[in-house]
């Protein structure tokens, strides 16, 4: 009972082969124009590849090649699409939007509304049922759009940068919501944000120039990136641990003060995220709160744009070449990494 996909589209220099286990969520990362949206469009049936084959649970989505020509229309595929733009039908209420899928599948009106109510409640939008899309905020609209996609119980849920159009307050809320509803569901999520991959996906695929350049468990890809793109993304420092009132405590016992991105309960599993550019390097312990200061040992130095990336185990910091020379940084040297609490975001894991 798997999803297999193999397609080539010469006009877009697209050639991808992948498969998903039941209940597996895969994040697709990659630069603009890498073919991420093409991948979703081909799966959804909105774009026809030159050759290839795809099937889900034994049902052929398409099979195109020499002598074979099978093409399942988009509405028979069971692949709901949640895009960056909610695209709620403006003339229908939130409830009717969510009921649209079941209704189209032949479910009687009443039962479809029942299903719609269930899914609206599932995305914490039960009270929005009667609203028109024009009366919803961006975050509310995207929640309703998520309910609409889930209401058809898709065999593969396709998410195309579902959080990128939301403001910084609405995105974390929807991200947590997606984490909840994507659990145990087969989904492909195209994203620019490494945090989405980290939080939502079991597996990460990196696409570059229409091809998959990396494929593996999320943590492995982000910790030991082989592709240039993943390396750039993986620059984000991610420290998993246990949530404390002030921040997070890592497994190694390091305390990180940070900004709670969402209402968190002390003791639950969480992750602290901060960019290397927010990390300063000192030779002696710096004082002054609110700062996080850790004694680490430099393991590696590498150029990163016009900066030097200082790696110390799992953490990294960006410093200018001049600062690096002043400090005399070299592998093996013990230094202090300092990061402002304001630059550290704490998320539930």
């Amino acid at each position: 009972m798997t999803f297999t996909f193999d397609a080539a589209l010469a006009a877009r220099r697209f050639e991808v082969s992948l498969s998903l286990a039941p209940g597996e969520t895969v994040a697709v990362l990659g630069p603009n124009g890498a073919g991420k949206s093409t991948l979703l469009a081909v799966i959804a049936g909105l774009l026809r590849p030159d050759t290839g084959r795809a099937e889900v649970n034994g049902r052929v989505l398409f099979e195109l090649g020499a002598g074979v020509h099978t093409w399942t229309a988009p509405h028979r595929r069971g692949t709901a699409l949640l895009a960056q733009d909610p695209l709620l039908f403006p003339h229908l209420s939130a409830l009717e939007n969510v009921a649209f899928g079941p209704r189209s599948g032949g479910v009687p009106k009443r039962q479809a509304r029942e299903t719609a109510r269930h899914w609206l409640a599932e995305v914490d939008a039960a009270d929005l049922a009667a609203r028109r899309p024009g009366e919803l905020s961006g975050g509310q609209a995207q929640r309703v759009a998520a309910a609409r996609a889930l209401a058809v119980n898709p065999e593969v849920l396709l998410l195309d940068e579902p959080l990128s159009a939301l403001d910084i307050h609405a995105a974390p809320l929807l991200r947590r919501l997606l984490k909840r509803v994507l659990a145990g569901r087969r989904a492909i999520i195209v994203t620019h944000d490494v945090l989405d991959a980290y939080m939502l996906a079991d597996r990460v695929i990196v696409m570059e120039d229409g091809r998959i350049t990396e494929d593996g468990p999320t943590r492995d890809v982000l910790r030991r990136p082989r592709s240039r793109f993943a390396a750039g993304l993986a620059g984000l420092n991610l420290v998993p641990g246990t949530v404390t009132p002030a921040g997070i405590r890592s497994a190694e016992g390091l305390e990180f003060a940070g900004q709670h991105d969402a209402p968190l309960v002390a003791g639950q599993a969480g992750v602290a995220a901060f960019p290397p550019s927010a990390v300063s390097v000192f030779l002696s312990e710096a004082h002054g709160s609110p700062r996080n200061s850790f004694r680490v040992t430099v393991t590696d130095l590498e150029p990163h744009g016009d900066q030097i990336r200082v790696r110390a185990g799992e953490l990294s910091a960006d410093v200018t070449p001049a600062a690096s020379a002043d400090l005399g940084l070299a592998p093996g040297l013990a230094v202090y990494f300092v990061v402002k609490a304001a630059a550290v975001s704490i998320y539930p894991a």
Partner: protein
Amino acid sequence: MNRRRDSAYSGIPRWVLAIAAVGALFVLLPLAAMVVRVNWPQFIPLVTSEASLTALSLSLRTAAASTVLCVLFGVPLALVLARGDFPGQRLLRSFVLLPLVLPPVVGGIALLYAFGRQGLLGRGLEVAGIQIAFSTTAVVLAQTFVALPFLVVSLEGALRSAGGRYEAVAATLGARPTTVLRRVTLPLVLPGLASGAVLSFARSLGEFGATLTFAGSLPGVTRTLPLEIYLQRETDADAAVALSLLLVVVAVIVVGLSYRGPAPAGSGSGSARSPGSSGRLSP
């Protein structure tokens, strides 16, 4: 529709305003001249004469029938032209829009050679006992011929500005193409469809050349209001002016409806997304 009440910067140079005023006058002046010329004491008897009422009723009925035909054929045409992708699409668009630029008399002659007694299809229809030319049906066909492009242009514009993204989402949610058309596409472009239909109605109401050529001028059968006005002008100028004013009033009401109509109907975000579609009048 969006009357500006604040004094926001408009960026229109004064000389443009002056030229616009001259242009507006150019349209309004002849109408005003006509209103001045109306024989008001005799106005009511003139427009309620039997010939006038017969012509007006025929005009309204045939224009309504033509509008129905325009919607029936125009919606699929606009869909195919806006959303389709096939060889000869541009050519098809050119031909559908041809009646816009064609002299209506030429249209009438063309229709005559298609549906007339000796025409391409007319001969076959004649055998079947159907005679179209010089009948009320001919009036409807002539009006549909000249009015169809108005609906197609208006709706195609609305379809293009709406884009196909809602339809793609609807399809991935399991909706068959017919369901998508009925529940997504048509509601989304309803303002464009309504203004297209109103324009077609107005164009049908004013049709003269093709009607006269293809349908003739039989009182009560094919003599519509414009034909009646043209005939009256030779014998009774007062009657012609009074009827002209009647036609102006009907046209103003129709155009007024097309501007106002879509606003309350699509007052949600649908009309907000494409404010141009309801206000787009000139093709």
